[in-house]
């Protein structure tokens, strides 16, 4: 018999983790033509940090996204970063990049103030121009400013940024401490069909709801959500590195036996985004890279319970485990 059930799960996830401090630096160099190069030390592991750092740089300098180049490839040239983990890069590197771009913009304003014969604090950088706020006629292109500053005034338009959270001072008995930048919030809804004859579980629908602080790039965000949810589905349904835990017997040694989800295993997924800005992150952003893998699994397990009244307390929910639990329940 096939039975349908629904389940939910909620969660949260920290951006950054500063047991011992959490540091990233960035440099933004404005070229004589008004384009920019942002240099950071974090890696792009597919999550899209190059895109986000380019967006932040373009936003602060008021230039096109296409006018920003990102360099992050080696330790000789790139500044310090603790690394791409702990859902920290958009937040921590993002802040460092924003600071560096603002620093570069400050130098551009110094140059433009001389050229426009005004004070620096009335200037803004928008539409690839430096202009007097409220008086768009009084403006120069960023290229003109950067060129004149570099060659005419011997300026080096290089902005620096360094964001570092203090190490979390921890009480050894209570563990009282403040170890993360901010929290993002998550919830998933799953609808499953359980075949009581075979023990197979089919995920009919998966809905994910997230607070991300600020959707810096909605397309990247959706990609992260889909990918994380799929990893959650894999952990819930099929993946087990030690199938006879704690024994190492029959440990899978190829990607046929270690079954990560294929196109055929991914359910229809929908997501809904909420923006509750972080108090200190760049543009209110929060990190969501890791969080997306956490709630789909328990939502699926709860949906199985709703369908057939069994609790899967040992992942993954293989047909064998489902059948054994049904047997134990006396179904």
């Amino acid at each position, binding site marked *: 018999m096939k039975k349908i059930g629904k389940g939910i799960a*909620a969660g949260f996830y920290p951006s950054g983790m500063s047991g011992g401090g959490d540091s990233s630096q960035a440099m933004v160099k404005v070229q004589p033509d008004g384009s920019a190069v942002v240099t950071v030390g974090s890696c792009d592991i597919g999550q899209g940090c190059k*895109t986000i750092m380019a967006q932040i740089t373009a936003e602060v300098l008021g230039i096109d996204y296409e006018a920003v180049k990102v360099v992050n490839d080696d330790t000789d040239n790139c500044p310090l970063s603790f690394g791409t983990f702990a859902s920290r890069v958009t937040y921590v590197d993002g802040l460092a990049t924003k600071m560096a771009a603002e620093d570069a913009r400050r130098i551009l304003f110094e140059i433009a103030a001389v050229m426009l014969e005004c004070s620096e604090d009335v200037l803004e950088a928008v539409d690839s121009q430096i202009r007097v706020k409220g008086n768009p006629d009084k403006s120069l292109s960023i290229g003109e400013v950067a060129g004149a500053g570099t060659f005419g005034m011997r300026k080096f338009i290089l902005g620096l940024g360094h964001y570092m959270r203090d190490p979390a001072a921890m009480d050894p008995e209570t563990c009282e401490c403040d170890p993360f930048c901010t929290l993002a919030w998550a919830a998933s809804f799953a609808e499953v069909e359980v075949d009581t004859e075979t023990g197979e579980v089919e995920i009919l629908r998966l809905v994910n709801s997230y607070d991300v602080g600020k959707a810096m790039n909605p397309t990247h965000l959706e990609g992260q959500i889909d990918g994380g949810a799929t990893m959650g589905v*894999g952990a819930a349904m099929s993946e087990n590195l030690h199938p006879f835990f704690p024994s190492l017997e029959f440990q899978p040694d190829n990607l046929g036996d270690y079954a990560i989800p294929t196109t055929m295993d991914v359910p229809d997924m929908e997501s809904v985004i909420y923006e509750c800005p972080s108090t200190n992150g760049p543009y209110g952003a929060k990190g969501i890279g890791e969080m997306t893998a956490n*709630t789909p699994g328990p939502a699926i397990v709860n949906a199985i319970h709703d369908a057939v009244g069994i609790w899967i307390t040992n992942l993954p929910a293989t047909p064998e485990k489902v059948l054994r639990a049904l047997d134990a329940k006396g179904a």
Partner: protein
Amino acid sequence: MSKVIGQRVTRYDGMSHVTGETKFVDDQVVPGTLTVKALRSPVSKGKIKNLDISAAAKMPGVAGIITAADVPCNAFGLVPDQPVLVSEDIRYRGEAIAAVAAVDEDAAMEALEKIGLDIQEQQAVLDPLESMKEGAPQVRPEGNLQMWDGHDYRQVNLGDVDQAFEQADEIVESTHLHPSVEHAPMEPICSLAVPHAGPKLTVYTVSQALYFHLGMLCGILQMEPGSVQCKQWKAKTGSAWRHNTGYADVNYIGGTVGGGFGGKNDIMADHVAALLALKTGRPCKWRWTRAEDLLYSTFRGAWHITIKDAVTKQGRIIGRQMTSIRDAGAYASLNPYVVEKHCYLGAGPYFIPNVRVRGYCVYTNKPPASSMRGFGITPAAFATEVQLDKIADRLGMDPWEVRLTNAFRKGEYTPTKRVLNSVAMIEVLQNLAAKAGVELPGHLKAMASTQERG
């Protein structure tokens, strides 16, 4: 007004990806590169009685072999407990004992077969629950349990949990096992180390954390700025000096990684490739097979989590006790940190005024586990969220109501007393219900994170 932030701009490196122009470590072509293969332990625990590389070193095509004696500082990691190559005590099946650099894979594999290895196998312990017991076989000299401030567990204590259990209308308990999970990025572990004239080394890496690994590699190589001549470099085994200098001697090249998910947060191949490059004076590439990657790379270690909750008839969780046991494998890697994060936030997105969490990091004779996407929170989310449905089931309540009733609100604090100011658990659940087509009752719809708890 944001012009670029919040926009759907295309992926910065998207065009390179779709044309195949993106170069990953394995795509770097350096003429004369040698192939590296490692001799790995066939047993989970044992003592090396004899290791003889003399016949292997004479094999055609072999340019160099390294063993523990060639590693200047043979202990690395956040807690520096892991040898690059085993000198005596084998602690997991697959642990590297020696590595060969040869002109091609066949020559390297043939040389491996000529290495004489005599191991005295010992009783291993694979079950973390067994490993915790008095008299269990010793996994590592520092003990089978990670110590924190004199305790063999990391603890979080908020309020008075025992009193909460006395006041509770219901006590709900459950135990969960989250299995070992592999990151399985499409790009396997790979490292290419290229030596240069003078004390310089370029390492092409799959690392997710270039600077983290730069410091670690310099510690292993014991490089001092300007003082090291690669070719005359001598082994200094047993040195306890770990001040990491030598950043001027090593350039780490990476930044473009074929998937990580936490699986590339630990040095796995860079040290061996670097040591062989320095020894042979030639570029050395160590690309793990997919089997090596699945069997011996880091993974999300299994968790055994027991939860006991004090609950009122109205569905409020007033006390939670969690005892969590992490199977860390044979070395620390990032395991202690994973356990800490689990303890900080494992109790979930709910305001529970009395919380006691004990997280144990237990060593076993498995390959070292380490970080993976979710870092100690993923298994906690599984256990606590199934537990929430058990509470709902026990009380005859709606799962939505139990969650919304307990969800954090602005100004409340986590078990480590961090006061929260950007809170959206209630709204995220309400949005989920709307998207899923679930009609919530009016009093749940009216809730908000900014409302003070009544």
